[in-house]
């Protein structure tokens, strides 16, 4: 069973999802461009999806509930992207910038 050693373990997928999620969090905090903030959110959602799919395949192989959850996450992500970019467009029309540091309308 030498081939068994080369199969991908579940932890590899979890580690990859952790890398992707932390990259997304860092980009979410540090991006100056508002479009890049939305991209970072998409990265984080993809990391969560990788986790769901990995658990669905490795732990729950017959009732693939993780895949159903991933489909719902994809749906909500699409809705979030549409509304987020619409909000971004109207913000750009008001402030004429995409710099996150200048969106301080709620600061008191």
């Amino acid at each position, binding site marked *: 069973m030498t081939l068994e050693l080369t199969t991908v373990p579940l932890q590899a997928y979890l580690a990859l999802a*952790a890398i992707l*999620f932390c990259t997304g969090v860092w980009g979410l905090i540090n991006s100056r461009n508002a479009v890049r903030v939305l991209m970072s959110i998409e990265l984080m959602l*993809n990391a969560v999806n990788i986790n769901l799919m990995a658990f669905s395949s*490795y732990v729950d192989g017959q009732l*693939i509930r993780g895949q159903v959850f991933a*489909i719902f996450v994809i749906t909500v992500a699409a*809705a979030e992207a549409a509304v987020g970019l619409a909000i971004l467009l109207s913000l750009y*029309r008001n402030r004429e910038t995409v710099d996150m540091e200048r969106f301080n309308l709620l600061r008191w």
Partner: protein
Amino acid sequence: MTIASSTQFICFVALSAAVAIGALGVVLLPNIVYSAFLLGGVFLSVAGLYLLLNASFVAAAQILVYVGAVNVLILFAIMLVNKKENLAAIPGLALRRVLSGAVCAGLFALLLRVAFSTPWATPGPVPLGDEATIRIGEHLFSDYLLPFELASVLLLMAMIGAIVLARRDVFASDIVTGEPADQGLIEKSRTPLLLEKPN
């Protein structure tokens, strides 16, 4: 497993390298157009990972929704707001980056520790393979019927909300005070890509 284990391992290594490097490029590259295209690459690589995990339907949905819709939407948003501007310097930006990097590294260490120290219940049942699509359909129309219908309502709400937020209406006068409104919002110099006024 439908493909040999070593091939699967090589595919996993290549795809995960593409995902990790692409995600770093999305976050770090100064040009946002490159970031958007790299994001498409990351989405495609994630779809490949789904294929490795015996989920062909979700991989197809990932390509259709993320690469086909979300990425194109982001590219259009970049085109609509693409104005060269010099970002003003902010005091303490480098310190903030280092601190948030430390926080993210700590989060990463925590996630890794959880992933490697938890005794997962593997190996579970044998994965379904090609019948996964049938099983997803059964799930969506039996025990996940209510979330499925709610998702359709959510998509409708998001569509109408996006139209309402992004439409470009400027009234001739302020409806509260009656003063002439700021018509500069429909001038081409301030909002590019606007069509000529019809009259």
